[in-house]
């Protein structure tokens, strides 16, 4: 066995791309994705303001918007230029403070303030819509308070009248709705799964590329496979450990569960990935096609995790496809451990959900035998040809 592991390490050492995949590419990838989202909280997003009233109250409302960290108001003279700036994605929303806003308020009419937000950029649009409404409503409340005071209502009562029903909202497990907490873990897991798939596929493909399938089979099919698993599983788990270190130790994101269980869950996920790659490898037996096919399967793993779009709202077919992806099984454990601090019993229950991958084992054995026979035939033929 020692020799077989040495053989794998030797192969790894002589393949610069494979070496890159287990060394600096994960580092660059993990750091790059984190850097992309490092702002964490959306703030200072440009909003077009068209102030047609230019009154005391309209200016008060604009000041109110300026005070909101998520918003930078940018003034436009007319609606058309504000609209054009939205179409160019220079601003993500626009607020129109209508002509005679102040006068309508004083004379007892009901003016309306128009807000348009860019829902093509859904994340930003929805966020700005709620922030704009919050800020404006807050400003208007102050105006209403003065009105009540003028009507002779005592201060304490006037405040209660305005906020009869107060609300207290708690975002559980991510108190300030930080996108680093929300998006980064699933993104890095998706990246990790891709790297794992590529590394293992490359290690198998190398035997094809260098024409060493014959050697593999004569050394013992299973023993070489175990050597590959023994070499690459720890290397990939090390990447997983790096991701966890970045998230929960360096960035200090809250972690309710235990580190060890997360690593254990990663090992189970990797074994499932290995089984899928093996089945595809023995089925296709061509390095470019193996990589292409694996890529097609694993590339869209992220949207199917159910973090950005909830699983239960996916169509049935998407939910089935989701079950095929090892990362979707893992992410449930990940969220459960990180946020809910789930028990070991739940953890084992989740590990059981991988049972479907075991069905791949007989398929792999069958396909591997077929490949082995074919390799033997080819080898025998070449020997015959050489002899004759």
């Amino acid at each position, binding site marked *: 066995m020692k020799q077989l592991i040495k053989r794998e390490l030797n192969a790894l050492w002589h393949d610069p791309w494979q070496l890159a995949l287990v060394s600096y590419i994960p580092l660059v990838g993990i750091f790059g994705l984190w850097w992309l989202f490092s702002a964490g909280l959306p703030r200072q997003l440009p909003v077009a303001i068209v102030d047609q009233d230019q009154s005391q109250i309209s200016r008060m409302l604009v000041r109110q918007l300026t005070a909101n960290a998520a918003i930078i108001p940018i003034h436009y003279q007319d609606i058309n230029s504000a609209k054009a700036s939205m*179409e160019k994605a220079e601003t993500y929303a626009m607020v129109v403070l209508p002509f005679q806003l102040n006068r309508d308020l004083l004379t007892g009419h009901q003016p309306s303030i128009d807000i348009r937000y860019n829902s*093509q950029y859904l994340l930003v*649009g929805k966020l700005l819509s709620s922030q704009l409404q919050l800020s404006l409503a807050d400003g208007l409340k102050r105006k209403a308070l003065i009105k009540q005071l003028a009507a002779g209502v005592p201060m304490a009562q006037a405040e209660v009248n305005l906020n*009869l029903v107060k609300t207290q909202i708690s975002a559980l497990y991510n108190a300030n709705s930080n996108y680093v907490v929300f998006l980064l873990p699933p993104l890095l897991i998706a990246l990790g799964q891709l790297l794992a798939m*590529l590394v293992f596929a490359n290690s198998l493909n190398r035997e094809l590329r260098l024409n060493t399938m014959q050697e593999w089979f004569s050394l013992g099919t299973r023993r070489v496979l175990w050597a590959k698993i023994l070499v690459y599983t720890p290397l990939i788990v090390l990447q997983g450990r790096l991701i966890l270190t970045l998230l929960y130790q360096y960035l200090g994101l809250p972690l309710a569960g235990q580190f060890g269980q997360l690593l254990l869950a990663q090992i189970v996920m990797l074994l499932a990935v290995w089984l899928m790659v093996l089945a595809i490898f023995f089925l296709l037996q061509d390095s470019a096609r*193996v990589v292409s096919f694996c890529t097609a399967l694993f590339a869209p793993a992220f949207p*199917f995790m159910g973090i950005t779009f909830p699983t239960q709202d996916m169509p049935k077919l998407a939910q089935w496809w989701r079950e095929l992806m090892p990362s979707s099984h893992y992410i449930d454990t990940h969220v459960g451990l990180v946020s*809910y601090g789930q028990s070991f019993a739940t953890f084992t229950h989740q590990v059981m959900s991988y049972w479907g991958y075991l069905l791949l084992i007989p398929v792999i054995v069958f396909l591997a035998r077929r490949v082995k026979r074919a390799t033997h035939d080819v080898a025998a033929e070449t020997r015959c040809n050489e002899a004759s």
Partner: protein
Amino acid sequence: MSFWSLMMADLKSIVTDKAIAITLFGGVLFYSVLYPLPYLNEVPTKQQIVVIDGDHSSLSRQLIRHADASPKLDVVGQLTTIDQAQQWVASGKAHGFMVIPENFRRDLIRQKGVTLAYGGDANYFLIYSAVVEGLMSVGIDAGKYVQFNGLLARGSSAKQVKHDLEPIKLNSVPAFNPSLGYTPYVVPGVLLLVLHQTLLIGAGILGAGQWGREGYWQQASALKLILARVAVFALIYSFFTCFYVGFCNYWYGVSVQGDLGQVVLFLVPFILCTAVAGVAFSCLFTRRDLPTQVLLLISMPILFVSGFIWPLELIPSPLVWLGQLVPAVSTIQGMLQLNQMGASWPSVVHFWWQLWGLASVYFVLAYFGVRYRLNKG
């Protein structure tokens, strides 16, 4: 070798090479179904919540009924403590909860302020926002209902009361994607990225399999080979692009506002630039299994620096600059503005020129790359 026969030879090796054919024809079809698949129901509805009713009054029960009637919420149980509610959230049986305090109705009628507490599982932002938005509107309505009745009882007219409760109307309307659907949000950008990536992979595998070997590609000059190859890929991808931008956008209900002529005009440099970049990219490889791997790893970053998921203002500027070199980035930005947000041609023309500029840069790189590969072989 004539230009025409060179093109035919290229086309033949694309179609007969299983790895390339699967990526191009299979990939383009497969992804047109797979990427939009999770989002087909557009918006999350009927999120399960639990209620902790400390009041048990007619008003609190009405509040619960209203919550249950909200399209965003589904009340699945009533519990007694917040701890229990958190356990439900942790086990996935519910995604949020509402706490109605003791003496809720009594305090409201006596004009004392009350506080409703909401909690939601913020591991899933879309679920969280649905829960909070649903509960907020239910809570605001309950407060208004009490105020309305109170003011009426004190002798104000119904019209006056309505006005007093809401002196200014805030009319907030989504623009460009009126249903707030997830498919129209994700699909137009992602499909363009799929076109870009599969083209680069296809050209990459084709080149990597040929450099250093004998074949028709050595019977032509570098310039001719590049032009023929770009022409072949551009031809194939014109059909794919029509399928994606024409049919798929229609099929998935993406809002389309662009003028057909302008959209076609915009996509011409995209296809050409990506094809030229593909030929240049292929010169980096001699192993057929590598191009796919490199592109797979940079797909996610390319998608994010396109700026429609996470705003460009928040992405560190070195990454944004780097993204400018990728044809897909300016295409996605330009196409979203032109076709989805109805921007005018002059306001997106700089993306168009940028694509032509990138095309010429990649052409120079492709020329030196292909010449090097052909001479070396």
